């Protein structure tokens, strides 16, 4: 990896590529993980991925049981015993909207955890959530207790008996009907053909998983996006963010260009002192001036409005003034003198000569102001209080903090949408971005 050489030995180049790819993975993988998570169902974001494939892509399980197509959810976390994996089967509604009843002989095996996870629900919710469960429960509930604890068997509607053990007896919250949550044990030698269980216990020793019933395939849930966008009030937040961004961009460009022109081409006493002072203020951290500035806006009565977020930008920004002035000083002086001899006023020179020549650097300033305003979090946090005014940053943060950070799939979907405009902008204006990096050598 000889530096600055025109020719790098071939084998070293390979090593450099390997190292750079590893480095690149560190920068890209989080973004990939963000998008991947945003397309997963909730249940597969709550558990540790099992393989690299399941990091990137959720696995969907489907099954056909007794001719009914079913959605299957894999529940590793609510198994009753270690090494249990539960598959929860929910038949898909048929064309006429009814939920197909599985077989008459249904047993429930779910762990206490599931009940804890759904602490309260209405009948309607229950029906919507997993209709077959209610149906299944009804079968048991309508009969006399089908469970014979002495024999440890469950008498099924068909008249057959299956080994089973009761997990617990509960009452359905909605109507108080007794439900028996029953765990069914089926020995490996049992003929499982006729037994359809909505919760198949998968255990190598028992060998119940029937390959012809369970199918796996990739599962992508784009429906997360509309849900997530609704939850962060996307349209409203986007409008707020754009409003602030546009005002900031406009203000910074107009004021900084004018001020930089003044510093670059006009003469007045104290110019250099003022410019030095301007440079020094780049060093003043936001935290130091935050409180008095807040108090000032409060005394004007602007706290709780967007104004504190953008009004300041119409008064110029030290760093951009510096940047523009440096650029202006590099412009050919003759042009300006010629315009002055032609009798142009300073504003006309600025508008007709300097601005057209400085389009790239002005674009850069606009881009970085936009980037800064779009990403800003602390400003909106301090000045905005009403959810109707929240910018995207604030909406996303409040959505995350409200829910204790659990609906990761929705959070990642909203995050993806929130970052996308900047990334798209970057690919359209890559040249401007990269040039700015090269010329300023400073943070954006």
């Amino acid at each position, binding site marked *: *990896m000889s530096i600055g050489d025109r020719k790098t030995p071939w084998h070293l180049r390979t090593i450099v590529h390997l190292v750079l790819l590893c480095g690149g993975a560190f920068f890209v993988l989080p973004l990939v993980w963000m998008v991947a998570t945003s397309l997963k169902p909730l249940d597969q974001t709550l558990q540790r991925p099992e393989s690299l494939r399941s990091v990137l892509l959720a696995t969907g399980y489907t099954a056909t049981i007794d001719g009914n197509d079913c959605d299957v959810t894999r529940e590793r976390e609510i198994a009753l015993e270690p090494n249990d994996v539960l598959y929860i089967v929910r038949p898909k509604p048929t064309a006429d909207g009814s939920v197909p009843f599985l077989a008459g002989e249904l047993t429930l095996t779910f762990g206490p955890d599931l009940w804890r996870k759904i602490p309260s629900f209405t009948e309607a919710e229950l029906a919507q959530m997993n209709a077959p469960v209610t149906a299944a429960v009804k079968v048991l509930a309508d009969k006399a207790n089908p469970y014979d604890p002495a024999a440890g068997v469950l008498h099924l509607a068909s008249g057959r008996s299956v080994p089973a053990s009761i997990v617990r007896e509960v009452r359905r919250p909605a109507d108080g009907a007794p439900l028996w949550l029953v765990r069914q044990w089926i020995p490996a030698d049992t003929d499982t053909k006729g037994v359809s269980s909505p919760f198949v216990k998968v255990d190598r020793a028992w060998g119940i998983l029937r390959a012809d019933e369970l199918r796996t395939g990739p599962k992508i849930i784009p429906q997360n996006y509309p849900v997530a966008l609704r939850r962060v009030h996307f349209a409203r937040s986007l409008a707020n963010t754009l409003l602030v961004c546009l005002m900031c961009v406009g203000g910074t460009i107009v004021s900084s260009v*004018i001020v930089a022109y003044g510093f670059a081409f006009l003469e007045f006493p104290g110019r250099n002192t003022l410019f030095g002072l301007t440079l020094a203020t780049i060093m003043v951290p936001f935290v130091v001036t935050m409180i008095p500035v807040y108090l000032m806006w409060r005394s004007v009565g602007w706290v709780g409005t967007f104004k504190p977020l953008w009004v300041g930008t119409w008064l110029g920004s030290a760093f951009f003034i510096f940047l523009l002035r440096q650029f202006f000083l590099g412009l050919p002086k003759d042009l300006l003198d010629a315009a002055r001899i032609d009798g142009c006023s300073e504003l006309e020179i600025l508008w007709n000569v300097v601005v057209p020549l400085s389009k790239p650097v002005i674009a850069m300033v606009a881009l970085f102001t936009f980037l800064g305003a779009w*990403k800003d979090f602390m400003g909106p946090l301090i000045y905005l209080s009403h959810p109707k005014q929240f910018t995207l940053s604030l909406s996303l943060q409040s959505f995350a903090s409200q829910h204790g950070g659990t609906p990761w799939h929705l959070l990642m979907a909203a995050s993806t949408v929130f970052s996308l405009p900047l990334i798209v902008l970057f690919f359209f204006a890559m040249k401007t*971005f990269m040039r700015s990096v090269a010329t300023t*050598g400073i943070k954006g």
Partner: protein
Amino acid sequence: MIGSGRFRRYATGYAFILPWILGLTFLVAGPFLAAGYFSLCEYPPLKDPMYIGGANYAELLGDPSFHRALGVTMLYAAAAIPLGVILAMTLAMLLNARIRGQSFYRVIFYLPHLVPTVVVAILWMWIFNAKAGLLNFVIGRLFAAGDWWTGLFFDVAALKVGKFVIHGGACWLLAAPALAAATWGPLARRLWPRENSRLRQLVCLAAIMAIVLAALPLLSAAAHTLRPEDVRKFRSPGWLTDGDPMPAGVGFAPSWALWSLIIMSMWSVGQMAVIYLAKLQDVPVELYEAAEIDGASWWRKTVSVTIPMISPVILFNVVMAIIGAFQVFAEPYIMTGGGPEDKTRFVAMFVYEQAFRYHRLGYASAVAAVLFVIIIALTLVAFRVSKKHVHYSGR
């Protein structure tokens, strides 16, 4: 007449910079002075400030939570800034090795910079999630599972054949002489008279692959020397919720939670690498050519040409990073809320909380003032230290 012309010119000048004079007065200098004054005041909400002298500063001296915040910030700066500079410089120098796909890597390194702060925070909260996060998945794959390396590497390679190759530690035996034959000057010149013979390239490639593969059994062996009960006891850190110090047993070491934030800050280092790269490419080639004529090695050229030539940029970025470290706010605020046990409560967050949660504006201003003094002091130190080392070329 001349006088009025000059007056007119001056007036035009002042008119042009008028917005900035207002901005400077009302948004920077004024508030700056006001903050200094407020720091000497008791300032209850909705009342006027009352002058109380240095009482706020006296309180600061004895406030353990402020000391903790300062300590956390210092630890963060001490770890994140050097690591960031080293990482960025390494990436930039690798990129500068005139390889193909430079712009591709540049885009990749730059991408994280485009992600909004809030998204960065939430995304990394999810990555650091102790149970289902990406990081603990990778770590679990590396250390905790039984036959750990088959897991990760065969996911990647999906090559069960590789197991056979990898198990043969013979890779080392093959790779070492091959690489020596291909690269070690005296030997290579004898073996491959032609500079870029295809055979030599193939040998190189084979040697590199062999070394990469051979590294795996070494790692594996290292893992297997752990007793099984150690492996079972292995617990991946809880990251953001984990207040244990790392390295364990050292009192002032950063906690895992703070390390999480440090690791996260490395994610935005790519953009700095792009900046360094731009500056590296400005280094005149003649300097390297001259060094080569003098017989300088790669290391010599790096130390004596590259680093001096871009030292002003490094200095500038270090100073900005110091200022930045003392303003870290959004990440801990969103990700940890300062916890566990104040281990990620940064000074900026402390100021925010004192001002807007506890409404102690005077006290918060005093903290901000101290913060400012520290920043200036550290900046001056950075300039002083670098005075000997930073090279400003002609300009």
